[in-house]
């Protein structure tokens, strides 16, 4: 399921021409990896405490609210990329 969500997101990002790296990991690996991520999209409850943006992937599976979710994720990705560009 998570892999399906990741592939779908990759397609949406490609369509929007937003360059991103999508890394998949189990929920139990998140605590160790989150430092390297800019955002988390998960189809499990995220219990790791983080100030990074966290989105639920469930709309990518049910289709309910999928467009709104993708809009939010892409807007956030663009925002983060702009911040990084401005900082460099």
């Amino acid at each position: 399921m998570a892999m399906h969500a990741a592939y779908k997101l990759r397609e949406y990002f490609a369509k929007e021409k937003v360059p991103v790296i999508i890394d998949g990991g189990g929920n139990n690996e998140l605590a160790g990896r989150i430092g390297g991520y800019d955002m988390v999209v998960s189809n499990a409850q995220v219990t790791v405490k983080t100030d990074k943006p966290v989105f639920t992937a469930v709309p990518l599976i049910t289709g309910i609210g999928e467009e709104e979710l993708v809009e939010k994720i892409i807007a956030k990705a663009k925002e983060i990329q702009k911040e990084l560009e401005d900082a460099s």
Partner: protein
Amino acid sequence: MSTNTEDNFLDIMLIEEENFFIKSEAKTYQEIIKELGEHLFSKGYVKDTFTQAVLDREEAYPTGLQAPGGGVAIPHTDSEHVITSALSIATLDEPVDFHVMAEPDKIVPVSAVMMLAVADPEKVIPVLRKVISIVQDAEAIKNLINSVSKEEAKQIVIDHITA
């Protein structure tokens, strides 16, 4: 008429009438997971560790979904417990409560359970996509829930995969 790609889908993930259960009388999510998991084990699709692994995963990471056509659950586990990819589907005589994916404090009454046994996750992405397209199709889920025979239920799934 099937294309080669669609034939490949059906080669990758077996969708057999014998793996469909109509109006199961299971009363809990554990019961329906055991019913489907033990069936897949008895047919040689999965290892003896599969059912418990699905139950453990469902407890930690529930798969209940409020889909457009009704409550659906998609219990599954890691590929190491699977021998041959297969899809086993049950409709329930009475909805069974599952915890909601990503919101485990919430409950969703589920009328259709689609158990995925995936031997190679990389290979089944196109199949997964089709399975999810069924979840997203209100009409298909309603028809599946209301189906009265294994044959009818299987045809709904096959129609989706070969659409």
